[in-house]
Structures are given as structure tokens and as C-alpha cells.
């Protein structure tokens, strides 16, 4: 697997560290309630198909990335800096 870092270009998977589902960027409001927070902290989808992950370019420039990829075909659809997604 190779990821195209927006700063560094196409790099080997070994330079990246997996950071979990990109829903981590969609933090609920502090008063959103137990159901929303339980969902945010514990519940994850396990899709056969399109998914969004966080990856950290720790062996490179140090950028957090949101990677849209397909778990069936291993195709990478899009790589965006997390700083542009989480405003």
C-alpha cells in the first residue's frame, strides 16, 4: 500500500501510522448526551467498501491525514490533511 502525502508525494506504507476511524474528528458537543458520546467513543463501523481513516505521517513530514479508501479493492480514493477537514 502506498499513500500520497499532500506534502511529500507518494510514500511507502511503512512511513505511516494508523490513527483509527476518521470519525474521531467529529467530536460531539460536551452536552450531547450519553448516547452520542457512547457512539463517539466506542462504536465503529466495519464496512466492506468505502471507509475513512486517520493516518499519521510519522516517518515523514508529521502531517495527520484523512484517507478515503476501499477495504475490498484497496483503492485509495483521496488523501486530505486532517487540518483541512477538522476546522
Amino acid at each position, binding site marked *: 500500500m502506498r499513500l500520497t502525502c499532500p506534502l511529500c508525494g507518494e*510514500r511507502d506504507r511503512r*512511513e505511516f501510522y494508523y490513527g483509527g476511524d476518521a470519525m474521531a474528528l467529529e467530536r460531539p458537543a460536551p452536552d450531547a448526551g450519553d448516547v452520542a458520546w457512547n457512539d463517539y467513543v466506542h462504536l465503529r463501523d466495519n464496512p466492506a467498501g468505502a471507509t475513512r481513516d486517520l493516518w499519521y505521517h510519522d516517518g*515523514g*513530514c508529521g502531517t495527520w491525514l484523512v484517507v478515503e479508501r476501499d477495504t475490498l479493492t484497496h483503492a485509495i480514493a483521496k488523501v486530505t490533511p486532517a487540518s483541512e477537514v477538522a476546522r
Partner: protein
Amino acid sequence: MANLIATPPFGDTLPVTVGATTITERPIERAASVAPFAGRAKAVSAALKQAIGLGLTGPGEWAAKGEASVIWFGRDTWLVIGAEVPESLQADAAVTDQSDAWACLRIDGPQAEAALARLVPLDLRAAAFGTGRTARSLIGHMSASITRAGGQGYDLMVMRSMARTLAHEVAEALQSVAARGA
């Protein structure tokens, strides 16, 4: 104040010469990282250009003028080597002294490229990584800064604590390449 004796980060592991390829220490006497605050990169670049004659470079690029060089060092971070960063810059950027924090060696010669191909997951050939290019990547398992030093040479930088490991890994790769009689 006591007059302290500086010890080189690579100890007695360098220099190494194999055939016409050499690995030598590149002493860093003064270095500082410059990380502009959000939206302040242009101002920092202009101020730096006025002070040392070099502005901030684009991602994957570096520049030098006289003793001074500016190396792209990761996301929104640059390393200024061999020049004093003006104190006024601290209003617009996080400036951190990195002297003695990083160790630098140069591998130069006809087998430098082949030796690094064993350690670095990047295309470091001249066509893809020519004059003025730099990259953050891995050397073995070490996070490193790799810079095209001109001609067949590369400057490799790792955190000082890993200096001897770097010298050992690079020397071993170079000796292995040479042993194949390429």
C-alpha cells in the same frame, strides 16, 4: 565558566572510505528549527530573507547561501543551519535551538546512491531527487532528514542519540554494495 570539550556525535565511527565512496561527519555548529505560527509563514520568510539572505523553501526543497542553509524539515517546519535566527522572529514563529540535537553525515561517491537504496524507501536517483531536493523519510527504522548535497553526495540527519547507529547502518550498506563488486 569551564571550558568544555565538544565530543563529536559519531565518535570514532567516522570517517569511512570504501573504494571511491566516503562517509564523513558534517559538524553542525548552530541550528534552529523555525515553525511559523498559523498564517505567519510569509512574514517569517520575508524576515528571514532580510536577516540571512534566505527565505523559507517549499516542501521538499532546501537552499544555501554562504555558510547558511534553510532546509524544509516537515509540515510547517524548517531547519536553519549555520546562521543566527533573529530574535524578532519569535513573534511570528516557534524558534527552537537544535544545535547538537541532530547529527549529520555526508555520504559521497559513485556508490552512495546504491548504498542508500538499501536503507531508504525513496527514489533518491538524480532524476527524482536532484539538486535542491530534501525529504523527511526513514533510514532503516530511524526518522531522518535526507538532502541532496550536490553531485553524488547526500547529507543524512538523525537525532543525535542515533548517530552511531546511522554511521553503522550506512557503512554496512556501503560495504555490502562494494562487496558485490558493482
